């Protein structure tokens, strides 16, 4: 079964989604159960994958490979390593949670809602499993359509604006990546990622490719200054959409950096790391300040997401500074910190958005000023919310602490002031999160609406408790994750230390004028000379 396990976890949700669509609106309760059952089966399968995964191997496992479009050497090539595996699990988990969270909340077009999330789940898992660049791109892009529809159909008042902005931003970023992929294909004759990791590229080529990848993934993660689609998308998306967006889709940006930018263009990444580091620091500090002044809870958490993802990019690119200093262990720490931060943020941000959804379903407002003293009327919920707030500021004992701590530790080793600046972000994070908690949950009961609130339903309790359990578990005992990641991270460190550019002389891209003459000479088959 292991030989096609990956295909199963990709296609089972998509097929379930189609089935759910076919069940039809008239039998919506059945559709809901089918959808939930499907997502739980996928979760079970990915747990099995975790169990069967051989730790200590850096390469891809559960590999599948068959020709897809032989005319262009595009293969259906799948495989997971220690970096992708936890993300697949995260996706399966969050999707199940999201389906439960939407149970009674979604009242219109129920089948389409569930189908969209299932299809999205399959596509996202596909992104993490693809080891063929074109397959990756297909999943990466196809993901946009279900998310576009989720935001646009079940979203808030400005949903149309938000959904189109989301789509255009991401599409714009990724189309340049597509050109980069085509260039690499013509250079190497294959779309296999592993082959590209070995492919020698000179400085100029790497430079162009780096920016092509950077555009795609920086928009996705998102980094300052291309982050502006995210607050809009989050605010307008339905709760489930926000949860998936924050918990998984943003991770795809970070994953893309790890899969494409770092190993394929190591020299350019090393050379341009300072730009990414600077942008990350701006994200963690400036966006943190922006989060402080938000009046809409969802917007606040959205900005907090951007700030947290700044830690991810910081960790990924600080590894370069450390590796070039000859400290691969610290570099591994930085990379692992970034990856841990991705996973932890997956649980915490999903929980935060879920919590906001719980409040919004009752009060139909997200303005902080409409709340106050919720803890009094909703003790269980308040408890969870405070816990997730703590995790969001990176309190030790929660998973939020692990990643941030590792990244800051590595940053201090690279440069004291870098570490200092990153640590400031922790304070800012604590400030906006705790202030949010204080205003919403503590204090006197603000008004009659808050007084009338009832505590969590069993369904909501399940959602909150599941996410809390994972946050706490990986906060106290991150070893299972770090063990799985370790070999792949070590391999990645080796890859980023390779000096690809040194292997070949300067490229044809360097001088356009020369090449223009050369190209027209070559292209005119009949031999026309100017």
């Amino acid at each position, binding site marked *: 079964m292991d030989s096609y396990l990956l295909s199963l976890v990709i296609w089972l949700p998509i097929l379930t989604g189609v089935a759910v669509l076919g069940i039809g609106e008239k039998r919506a309760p059945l559709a809901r159960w089918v959808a939930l059952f499907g997502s739980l089966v996928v979760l079970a399968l990915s747990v099995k994958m975790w169990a069967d995964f051989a730790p200590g191997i850096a390469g891809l496992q559960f590999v599948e490979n068959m*020709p*897809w*479009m*032989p*005319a*262009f*050497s595009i293969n259906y090539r799948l495989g997971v390593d220690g970096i992708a595996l936890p993300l697949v699990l995260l996706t399966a988990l969050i999707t199940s949670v999201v389906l439960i969270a939407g149970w009674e909340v979604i009242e219109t*077009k129920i089948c389409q809602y569930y189908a969209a999330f299932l299809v999205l789940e399959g596509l996202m898992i596909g992104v993490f499993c693809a080891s063929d660049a*074109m397959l990756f*791109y*297909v999943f990466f*892009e*196809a993901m*946009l*359509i279900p998310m*576009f*529809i989720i935001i*646009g*159909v079940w979203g808030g008042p400005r*949903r*149309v604006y938000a*959904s*189109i902005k989301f*789509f*255009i931003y991401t*599409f*714009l970023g990724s*189309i*340049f990546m*597509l*050109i980069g992929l*085509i*260039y690499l*294909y*013509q250079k190497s004759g294959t779309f296999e990622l592993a082959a590209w990791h070995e492919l020698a590229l000179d400085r100029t080529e790497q430079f162009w490719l780096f920016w092509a990848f950077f555009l795609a993934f920086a928009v996705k993660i998102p980094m300052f200054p291309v982050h502006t689609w995210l607050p809009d998308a989050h605010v307008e998306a339905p709760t489930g959409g926000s949860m998936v967006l924050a918990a998984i889709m943003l991770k795809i940006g970070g994953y893309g950096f790890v899969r494409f930018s770092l190993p394929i263009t190591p020299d350019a990444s090393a050379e341009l790391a300072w730009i990414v580091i600077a942008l990350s620091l701006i994200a963690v500090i400036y966006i943190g300040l922006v989060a402080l002044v938000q009046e809409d809870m969802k917007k606040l958490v959205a900005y907090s997401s951007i700030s947290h993802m700044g830690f991810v990019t910081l960790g990924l690119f600080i590894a370069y500074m450390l590796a070039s200093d000859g400290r691969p262990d610290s570099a591994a720490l930085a990379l692992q910190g970034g990856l841990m931060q991705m996973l932890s943020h997956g649980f915490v941000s999903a929980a935060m958005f879920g919590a906001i959804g719980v409040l919004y379903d009752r009060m139909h407002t997200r303005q902080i000023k409409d709340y106050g003293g919720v803890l009094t009327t909703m003790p269980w919920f308040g408890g969870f919310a405070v816990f997730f707030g703590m995790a969001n500021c990176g309190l030790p004992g929660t998973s939020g602490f692990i990643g941030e701590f590792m990244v800051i530790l590595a940053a201090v080793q690279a440069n004291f002031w870098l570490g200092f600046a990153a640590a400031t972000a922790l304070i800012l994070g604590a400030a906006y999160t705790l202030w949010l908690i204080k205003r919403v949950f503590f204090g006197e009961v603000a008004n009659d609406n808050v007084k009338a609130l009832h505590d969590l339903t069993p369904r909501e309790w399940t959602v909150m408790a599941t996410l809390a359990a994972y946050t706490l578990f990986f906060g106290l005992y991150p070893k299972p994750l770090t063990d799985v990641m370790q070999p792949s991270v070590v391999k990645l460190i080796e890859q980023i230390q390779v000096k690809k550019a040194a292997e070949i002389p300067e490229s*044809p*891209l360097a001088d*356009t004028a020369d*090449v*223009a003459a*050369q*190209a*027209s000479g*070559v*292209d*005119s*088959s*009949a031999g*026309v000379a100017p």
Partner: protein
Amino acid sequence: MMMSSVAELRPMLPEIVMLVAGLFLMMFDAFSTAKQRGWMHFLATLSLLGTAFAVTLDMHFGAPDRSASGLFVRDALGDVLKLFMLFATGLVFVYGRHYFDSKRQYFGNFYVLILFAVLGMMVLVSAGNLVTIYMGLELMALATYAIVALDRDNGVASEAAMKYFVLGALASGILLYGMSLLFGLTGSLDLFEINAKLLTLFNTDGGSLVLMSFALAFIVIGLAFKFGAVPFHMWLPDVYEGAPTAMTAFIASVPKLAAVGMAIRLLPEGLGTLTPRWQEMLALLAMASLIVGNLGAIAQYNLKRMLAYSTISHVGFMLLALLSASASGYSALLFYVIVYSISTAAAFGVMISLSREGLEFDRIDDFKGLNKRSPWMAFAMLIVMASLAGIPPLIGFWAKLQVLMAVVALGPAWKTLVLIAALFAVIGSYYYLRMIKVMYFDEPESDATPSAALDVRIILAMNTLLMVALGFYSQPLAQLCGRVFGVGGID
């Protein structure tokens, strides 16, 4: 000159079948009662099937078969184009049947004219000689002018037909002028001879280069008119909007296949010597088409006009493939135009099936909340729009991918062109998304639940399914296109 024998007519069998069928239908229409005319649809579809059968009877992969002293070329390119023309025309017949039915008085003429237009296109894509090209082109053009004008009480349609006719005639004139210059230069009308003579001239007499460039420029302009490339695109939106929807479906989907055939016959096969020259010309046309087409489409409120501008932007992509001047580029071009015609047929199929008597269903606002009223139609349109926008895994993505691959292969000197193509693909996605938005996010303006006849729904479902299936596995089509130009194949 060789005497024509029956064996020499064999390669033209599909054209002969089509001609006989067209003539028969014309007579049938003239001498039958209103009741008997109900058979017209069936008979016309049958003629398409018969012609398609005649094409498949001896598909020509390998060396081209040049009959009638080289006037007529039978090769794989022509055969593949013909098959897809017949296929797309068949789709239009199914989608348009109820529309044709509702216009009783002209009933049969629609079918007869369309068959003759297709015959013209078939001749055009098999041309080995400038005269054959011109003959095919005019047969196609005259029939399509008449198709647009047929609904003579409709003022908009008549205006559109007039514009189409005047600009089309102008384009033909320009093309003809270019051809006469070529004849003056080489003393031949045969495309292969022209190519050979131009090469000798080029190497011996540098002075004739100016004249060559002149001839080339006129021919490229004539082509650009037929494609609807910017700045020769003015007729396109008006004709799309003015013609009755069922007619637009035909004009939008089928003649582009013929235009591609004509372009490949004329430029690489006839004027291969001047490749770098027409590459530059096409680059400008392609860029302008991408920019104007995509920006123009954003401003439209009428779906037919929007699709017209979207066509212009697709023409930009086709020209990109053509200018890459490589076998893989032509294969990408063939792939692109086939995908384009299937997608366009589906788009108009949805429009026609939603139309009612007196309501054309061609404003974008008519589609508001379609998902609530008719979810499957909305889904079909979603697939078509996403495919035209080039979003994977739909078939439109693979078409765009192949074109981009062909252009990237040209080398770094062309990177501006690639970047512009990519940028405008993103801008273009906006108006396709807007259609999805209108159908899925907006509230319906009326509660009318449109419903189409069963056969239309089945064919439409198959058409959409084909786009999805080819998106998941486009290898067969890519392989077919590659085989026509002798590339790709099996790894």
